[in-house]
């Protein structure tokens, strides 16, 4: 059949055919989206209903307990929060610097190529491998112990490739004329990076960081490998004190537990009342992840508004 239309009828026929295909594809897309969304919704609602009875304020302020009704997630959410702070504090500067170096400074040769391929591959390494590496390196070789800092560093390693790749993508999206303009008026490479590249790539970098953090928050395997504990009924030392020097970093060395481990422990209990606790903790973890993603979207929107090219 020839696509060279001869009569208006034939042209109309062709258009109608193309439109039918359009509708077909839209339907396919909607079905694909629907399946994914319905699965998530079914799982989430089931979990929400199971855990609903436990979603009370006390659930957040109580330590774990052998009695399901008195058990809470205080040590777990504080642990998760502190580990995430360490993860962000390590992964963001390292990842963003590495990304900027690779995009702006690195010479284009085979060494850089090898590094690039490796970073992309690292993003696909199973998380348990990072856990084993961390057990050998951080816990034993560096003697950091089974502590908040070890967990934070481990998860930072885990999300480092994601942050680097996101940083590079964000930098590549900046039009070349910005860079050329800066150089044309005599800016040094650092001035260009500091005043143009970093501010303009910030929305993209932030999105990458938070996607990485959302992955890290739900990780269980590497944290179990480095030896997070199951029963902890106390909090790490407070970072701010009443006496000089007011700041304390003791919490970095404290033993800890995190949300996914607390859930895992509760699901394997014989008493079904604990399964409700696990469902409630799961619901909160989903909301924590959603909140982080929401923050990413909001920040991206805010920062993009300020960019005027």
């Amino acid at each position, binding site marked *: 059949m020839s696509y060279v239309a001869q009569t208006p009828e034939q042209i109309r026929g062709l258009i109608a055919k193309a439109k039918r295909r359009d509708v077909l594809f839209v339907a396919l897309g909607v079905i694909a989206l629907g399946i994914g969304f319905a699965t998530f919704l079914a799982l989430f609602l089931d979990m929400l209903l199971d855990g609903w009875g436990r979603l009370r304020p006390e659930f957040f302020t109580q330590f774990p*307990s*052998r009695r399901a009704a008195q058990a809470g997630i205080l040590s777990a959410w504080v642990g998760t929060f502190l580990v995430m702070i360490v993860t962000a504090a390590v992964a963001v500067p390292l990842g963003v610097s590495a990304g900027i170096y690779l995009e702006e400074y690195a010479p284009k040769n085979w060494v850089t190529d090898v590094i690039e391929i490796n970073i992309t591959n690292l993003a696909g390494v199973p998380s348990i491998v990072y856990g084993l590496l961390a057990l050998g390196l951080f816990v034993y070789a560096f003697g950091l112990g089974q502590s908040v800092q070890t967990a934070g560093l481990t998860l930072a390693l885990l999300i480092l490739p994601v942050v680097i790749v996101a940083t590079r993508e964000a930098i590549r999206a900046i039009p070349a004329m910005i860079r050329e303009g800066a150089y044309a008026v005599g800016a040094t490479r650092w001035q260009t990076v500091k005043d143009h590249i970093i501010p303009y790539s910030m929305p993209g970098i932030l999105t990458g960081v938070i996607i990485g953090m959302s992955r890290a928050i739900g990780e269980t395997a590497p944290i179990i490998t480095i*030896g*997070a*504990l*199951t*029963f*902890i*009924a*106390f909090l790490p*030392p407070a970072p701010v004190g009443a006496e*000089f*020097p*007011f*700041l*304390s*970093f*003791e919490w*970095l*060395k*404290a*033993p800890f537990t995190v949300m996914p481990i607390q859930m895992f*422990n509760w*699901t*394997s*209990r*014989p*008493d*079904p009342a604990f*399964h409700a606790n696990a469902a409630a903790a799961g619901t909160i973890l989903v909301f924590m992840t959603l909140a982080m993603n929401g923050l990413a979207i909001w920040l991206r929107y805010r920062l993009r508004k300020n960019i005027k090219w």
Partner: protein
Amino acid sequence: MRFTNSLLAAALASALSTAALAQGALVRIDGSSTVYPVTEAVAEEFQKAEKGRIKVTVGISGTGGGFKKFCRGETDISGASRPILKQEMEDCAKAGITYYELPVAFDALTVVVNPKNTWLDRGITVEQLKRMWEPGAQGKVMRWNQIDPAWPDQPLKLFGAGADSGTFDYFTEAIVGKSKSSRGDFTASEDDNVLVQGVQRDVNALGFFGYAYYAENKDKLKSVPIIEKAGKPAVRPDMATVLDGSYQPLSRPIFIYVSAKGYERDEVKKFVEYYLTHGAKLAQEVKYVPLPPKAYALNREHLAKGKKGTVFGGVSEVGVRIDDLLAREAKL
């Protein structure tokens, strides 16, 4: 700027100088998931009683994993659902770790079936269980009436603990006669709740796990009375039959191993004392069988006289009755 810098420097210095202090009043415990519920209950009550002066952490690494950490000196106390093995004794000896072995409770491995199963109400012999579970049964013994012609001509569905657990080790040793020797074609899970659900849904199912899981699911499952040898009575697992030693061979003692070096520290001493005083009551609360008071008294005596080491000589045994255990502990 200078002020901020000096502040930061001071904070860093204090963080470094108090590194050792943070470990001060901390009792580190790891080990078996079977012992965990008892230790967790003790740790919870102990920390309440001490009002936060002493902190206790409890992890689950399994009996073997717990001993690995214990023999590296990373923990003060290790929970164990079997006595310490030769290899582990050697590891501890190499690292210069000596320990007190304290039995704290008994557990009863429970064989369970669906509530609609009527043909096992009068019990099952250890020999029949062996024919059901031994490696040679794989792919051959597939129907109930192959074990006993009086039982229905229905498929036999088996559920059991995963191969990494101490429960699997103990069950195979007690039933088949050799640790870890079992048929492979059964539904295995490390998560006992999966086994509970499996047996609950299938009339033709049979499974086994620790007594606590049965006790919490009595409305969904039925325990099977065990006949140790032909001519002996069929015995169901419960507190009384474990205590008087008639539930055999599936009852087993569980232990905590306390590092002698750790025990020199005041907080560990206090915790162990609390364990021995309140352990019996708390064990019962989490559905374990407490030992008679004499056992806790013997434990105290060992601690006071500094009697270290194990009474089992590095061999895993089955069918140790509470009386045997006490007699052996007394000889240490």
